[in-house]
């Protein structure tokens, strides 16, 4: 087999896809430009007055305490005494309500609306800079880097305020060296509810009593971690909130008159305790303002805002503390905190409502001018409208101030309206796109899909071409370098994206041309038949159900409703295509044995290849497997998670980790179920290997199957048991438990790596038994002992013993008969166990090991779903094998090993189906972050490892199906019907099943079939990426684009990335086995003929 062309073609194909995705994503998800200017005290913001320095005016508050309680949802902060039986998270912060009602002019509680994405780092950025976040920032949560934009902490430091910080260490990485004193505590470990909070409490009160601080920031994480770990509806949440209540009380008691207290949440949480999205449950946090001196002009009035946007905190705090508003803030001051015009008593100090608004508006206008000078992305129409509005307002205000009369109250309202419209304009523009890049990416992806299709249809022609890839690659390099040089010449710098685009496009077009030429030459060689109708026929072939189903699937990605219901849609399609197989077979009259109707002319039907009994057996296998497929499809529906859009939906019970379950009986039941499915998974794998005689030899793969696989399962089972034990139940064993939590998963990882490495290094599972030689050197391995040790019954041995009928080999053995080594009955002297499944055994074992490894990263309940995955894989493979046999398409007959579209489509749709059935969803809040802590309960130092673990967890089913994809090629050969050809073969007496050795007989067809199979798989995955890219491009102004289509695009693209990488891994493993088999034969031949 020509291995190199297969691999290089696949690599090239994947590279083209990657470039297309890179370009499109680069044009679709743009980052907002950061303005690197800072406000200073000398900014002239006051009109007509000669206050040279803004900062030297005595501010309203000298000091402020910021208590940030992570994920303090507004529901947690409200207090409703009428509730008789509050839920664990309700009515646990009575201090807020008590203070607000007993001292109405001192305190107020508002809902505090965050801008999505509601992740902690984005929020900290948001409420310190006052700007709006962009979508691309989501990925930075693990690698939070310092904030470069102007922000509140920087401004406070500028005027010499001493900022003391304690709590979540994200702050420390965002504001390195900005704090007067800093006490960060590790935030990454979600399971740890108390370290950060207790750390803060140790220092909070002593710091407050002291005098060496002006602004105190304390960021508590316990509530958020409690939500992540247990969900809001859990007694632990009640404890945590009660603790926070006590903290707020103590802080209020220690406040002085010139101090402002702000208690706030940075975001909310969903009913399952997650956040990151933009549902109201996640965005609505609480903010509570309090000061021992009167803060508000009066009790709550009609003009109170219903909701406070999170950006508004920055200008409010800045003006209250007497620092300039950060340069890029687009928030507006919170008016109730400022006295109305004319009522400013000099004693209180500070600004009136109108003055504050004016300063605010001037700052926002300055930012707008600077920004529009730097970037041209704000539409000029709205920009000029905003500027006209501002100049009108400013002249109104200035004349009013100059004339000394009090400005009309409408002015305040129109200033507010101006600020709001600036914010809305910014929000609308910062979701902007680069249409050219997007179009180029789309074109490259479209060509890549087309190429993939052509490659899969013409694989046998194209693989024969020598140096097919040379020209495209050379062209790509040349064009890329040319474009780079041109850019360097004209612009002075290189934009990598455009070089890559030019390279990819040129190589694609060249390849298309070469493929066209190869086809025409091949067609000319074959005396092309009916070229005229070919086009029409080709179009009709495309509309058969196996391709109609992926088409529907792609079309479904264009509608938000179908994306939301994706799990069910895919299951529906898999089911439909599964049912299509027997119906189609029946339509061709192949499902039932042909009835012996004397009336029927014999010539009408193709002469029966298979005996009626064989047909009946295959049909019943097919129907049974279809039943299994349908069953696992139906059961897999019960493992789905829920999107926030699906209001009626209840997430699967198996999705929550065991430690969250409170009913111990239910816990035990779940544990036993998971353990049973894990055991069944291992048993089935070993059973299969044993059945085909692959467990006899002593190579690395067999060692893995015999020892590492069971050991790995045991490790996993123990790990589940340990992680499910409640923390407080075994106090005296706590150390042991924490050690086990560390050691067990790490052992499992090591075992997994060792096993995969061994499979890779020594993939052969063939046991050779030399008959004639046995008596001579049998002392080491006498046959009877061998039989006993493997436990194979003589009958099974007879059945699965694959004699060497491999033609060349037999001939060479017969040549060597001169030496008298062969047995007298002319049978070959060498027998090999497991040769028939030499390719599929290591691949299957690889898949199985990987499956257990991925299961380790999932919640325990998912073991059932993984078992279903294995069963569905088996069912699909058997259905494919049976239908191939029934169609009479065995390699022996047609000479090729082509895998038709139907099984490949089913295989790739099943990958998506199990993505959903393992509890994943294409949304960011549903990413199972817990996977990053398996084996690392103490958190990580780097970002690569946790990202890798989370990726492996998210795309587990994609990985398994991609690695297992080549199995589709082998399975019909594995399930070859023994003796079905006996009658036909006639003279050749006793032809034995040679199974996968057929592949070695036809290495060229093997290569082309492997290429075809993998390109078909890539095509279907790539078409899905293309469809979701189209959806994002067409619907980029859709209401749901950031909620549904953009996340779907990211997940689809990453899924493709992972799938293609692991497909390459699977194909490489097959090639590796092929190499090993070749070497083995070379070694065996001289050995046997000696």
């Amino acid at each position, binding site marked *: 087999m020509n291995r190199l062309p297969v691999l290089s073609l696949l690599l090239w194909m994947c590279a083209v896809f990657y470039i297309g995705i890179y370009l499109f994503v680069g044009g679709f998800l743009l980052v907002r430009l950061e303005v690197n200017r800072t406000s200073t005290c000398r900014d002239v913001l006051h009109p007509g007055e000669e206050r040279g320095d803004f900062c030297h005016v005595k501010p309203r508050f000298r000091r402020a305490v910021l208590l940030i309680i992570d994920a303090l949802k507004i529901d947690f902060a409200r207090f409703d005494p009428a509730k008789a039986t509050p839920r664990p998270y309700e009515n646990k912060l009575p201090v807020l309500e008590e203070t607000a009602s007993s001292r109405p002019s001192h305190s107020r509680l508002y809902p505090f609306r965050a801008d999505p994405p509601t992740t902690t780092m984005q929020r900290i950025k948001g409420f310190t800079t006052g700007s709006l976040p962009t979508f691309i920032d989501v990925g930075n949560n693990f690698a939070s880097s310092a904030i470069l934009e102007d922000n509140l902490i920087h401004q406070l430091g500028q005027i010499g305020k001493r900022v003391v910080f304690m709590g979540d260490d994200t702050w420390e990485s965002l504001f390195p060296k900005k704090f007067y004193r800093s006490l960060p505590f590790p935030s990454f470990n979600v399971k740890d509810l108390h370290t950060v909070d207790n750390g803060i409490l140790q220092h909070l009160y002593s710091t407050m009593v002291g005098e060496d601080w002006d602004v105190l920031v304390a960021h508590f994480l316990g509530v958020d971690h409690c939500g992540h770990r247990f969900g809001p509806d859990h007694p632990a949440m009640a404890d945590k909130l009660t603790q926070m209540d006590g903290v707020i009380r103590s802080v209020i008691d220690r406040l002085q008159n010139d101090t402002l207290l702000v208690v706030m949440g940075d975001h909310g949480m969903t009913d399952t305790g997650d956040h990151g999205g933009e549902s109201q449950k996640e965005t609505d946090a609480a903010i509570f303002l309090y000061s021992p001196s009167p803060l508000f002009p009066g009790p709550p009035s009609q003009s109170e805002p219903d909701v406070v946007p999170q950006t508004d905190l920055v200008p409010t705090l800045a003006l209250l503390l007497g620092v300039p508003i950060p340069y890029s803030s687009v928030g507006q001051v919170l008016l109730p905190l400022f006295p109305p015009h004319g009522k400013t008593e000099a004693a209180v100090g500070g600004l009136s409502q109108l003055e504050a608004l004016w300063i605010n508006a001037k700052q926002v206008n300055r930012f707008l001018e600077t920004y529009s000078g730097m970037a041209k992305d704000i539409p000029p129409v709205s920009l000029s409208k905003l500027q006209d509005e501002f100049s009108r307002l400013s002249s109104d205000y200035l004349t009013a101030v100059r004339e000394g009369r009090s400005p009309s109250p409408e002015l305040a309202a129109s200033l507010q309206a101006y600020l709001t419209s600036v914010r809305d304009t910014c929000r609308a523009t910062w979701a902007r796109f680069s249409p050219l890049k997007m179009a180029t990416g789309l074109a490259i992806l479209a060509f890549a899909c087309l190429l993939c299709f052509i490659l899969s249809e013409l694989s046998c022609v194209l693989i024969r071409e020598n140096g097919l890839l040379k020209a495209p690659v050379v062209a790509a390099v040349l064009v890329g370098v040319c474009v780079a040089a041109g850019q360097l010449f004209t612009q002075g710098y290189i934009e990598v994206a455009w070089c890559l685009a030019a390279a990819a496009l040129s190589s694609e077009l060249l390849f298309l041309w070469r493929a066209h030429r190869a086809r025409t030459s091949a067609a000319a060689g074959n005396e092309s038949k009916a070229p005229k109708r070919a086009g029409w026929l080709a179009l009709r072939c495309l509309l058969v159900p196996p391709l109609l189903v992926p088409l529907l699937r792609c079309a479904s990605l264009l509608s938000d409703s179908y994306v939301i219901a994706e799990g069910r849609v895919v299951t*529906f399609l898999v089911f439909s295509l599964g049912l299509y197989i027997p119906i189609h077979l029946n*339509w061709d009259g192949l499902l039932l044995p042909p009835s012996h109707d004397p009336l029927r002319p014999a010539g009408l039907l193709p002469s029966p290849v298979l005996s009626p009994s064989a047909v009946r057996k295959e049909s019943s296998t097919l129907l049974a497997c279809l039943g299994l497929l*349908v069953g696992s*499809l139906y059961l897999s529906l019960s493992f789905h998670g829920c999107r926030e859009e699906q209001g009626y939906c209840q997430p699967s019970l198996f999705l929550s980790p065991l430690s969250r379950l409170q009913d111990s009986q239910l816990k035990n039941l779940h544990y036993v179920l998971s353990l049973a499915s894990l055991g069944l998974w291992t048993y089935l794998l070993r059973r299969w290997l044993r059945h085909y005689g692959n467990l006899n030899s002593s190579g690395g793969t067999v060692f893995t199957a015999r020892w590492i696989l069971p050991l790995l399962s045991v490790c996993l089972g123990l790990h589940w048991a340990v992680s499910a034990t409640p923390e407080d139940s075994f106090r005296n064993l706590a150390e042991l438990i924490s050690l086990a939590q560390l050691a067990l998963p790490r052992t499992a990882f090591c075992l997994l790596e060792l096993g995969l490495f061994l499979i890779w290094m020594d993939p052969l599972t063939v046991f050779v038994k030399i008959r004639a030689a046995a008596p001579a050197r049998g002392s080491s391995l006498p046959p009877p002992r061998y039989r006993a040790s493997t436990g194979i019954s003589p009958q099974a041995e007879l059945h699965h013993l694959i004699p060497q009928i491999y033609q060349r080999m037999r001939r060479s053995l017969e040549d060597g008969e001169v030496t008298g080594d062969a047995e007298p009955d002319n049978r070959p002297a060498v027998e090999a166990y497991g040769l028939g499944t030499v390719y599929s055994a290591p691949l299957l074992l690889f898949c199985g090991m990987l499956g257990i490894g991925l299961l380790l990263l999932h919640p325990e309940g998912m073991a059932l779903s993984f078992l279903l995955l294995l069963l569905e894989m088996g069912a699909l493979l058997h259905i494919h094998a049976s239908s191939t046999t029934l169609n009479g398409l065995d390699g022996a007959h047609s000479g090729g090993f082509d895998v038709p579209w139907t099984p490949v489509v089913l295989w790739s749709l099943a990958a998506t189906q199990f993505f959903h059935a393992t509890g994943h969803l294409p949304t960011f809040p549903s990413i199972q972050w817990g996977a990053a802590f398996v084996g690392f309960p103490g958190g990580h130092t780097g970002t690569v490892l946790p990202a890798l673990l989370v990726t492996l967890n998210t795309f587990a089913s994609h990985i398994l199906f991609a690695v297992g994809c080549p199995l589709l090629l082998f399975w019909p050969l594995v399930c070859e019907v023994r003796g079905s050809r006996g009658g036909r073969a006639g003279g050749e007496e006793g032809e034995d099943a040679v199974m996968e050795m057929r592949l070695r007989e036809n290495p060229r067809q093997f290569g082309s079939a492997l290429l075809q199979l993998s390109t078909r798989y890539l095509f279907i995955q790539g078409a899905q990426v293309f469809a979701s890219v189209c959806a994002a491009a067409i619907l980029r102004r859709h209401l749901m684009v950031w909620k549904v289509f953009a996340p779907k695009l990211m997940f689809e693209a990453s899924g493709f990335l992972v799938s293609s990488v692991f497909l390459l891994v699977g194909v490489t493993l097959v090639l590796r086995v092929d190499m090993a088999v070749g070497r083995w034969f070379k070694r065996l031949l001289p050995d046997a003929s000696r």
Partner: protein
Amino acid sequence: MWDHEIRAMASSHAIIASSVFMATVLPAVLVQGFSVYGTHLLWLYSVSGAVTVVNIAVFWLLGITPPTKKHTLGYKLSRLVRSCLYFLLSCLFYHTVVVLYGAPLIETALETFSLAVLLTSLTTLRCLCVLGPNVQAWIRVFSRHGAMSVWDTSLQITVACTVVGAWVGAFPIPLDWDRPWQVWPVSCSLGSVIGFLTGLVGAPAWIHYHRKQLTYKCK
């Protein structure tokens, strides 16, 4: 040569199609507050009842049903009983398939079963009328060379159209348009009835245009 048969088929199909139409219109006149969406189950049962009755009457009058070997009363009775049994089993079969396709198992069991009854009366009943209670023959008919007469071909076409119609009818269910016909099982039953009507119209037309290619072995 088959002009006579095609004409007979076209007219019988017209009668069946008009029965579907009548089953929609008559209750609207007679029953207060009747509508296809609002009182969907009523409509569904009236259509399946009408189609059942008309189908049986038409096929009995035309004498398409395969000739029975014996003419004893007992044999006829047993055929009748078997037909009823198959009808019921087919309802259960369709119910199972629809549930496996994703219909709620318990909450809307009645609606799902009604859809199964409708599908049965549109497909299985025709099989029963044309081929008799003989599952082997049913399976045989749905293969490329299985049709033995124009009636078999029309059976293939109408059954395929009905099933595909019901399948396509499931497509609008996830959409968030909040229309009354998106409620389970309205779209599916509408789809199957529309598919059935298409099949009724399409079968004679298709046979007419392909009459040159069609060859039946034993007719």
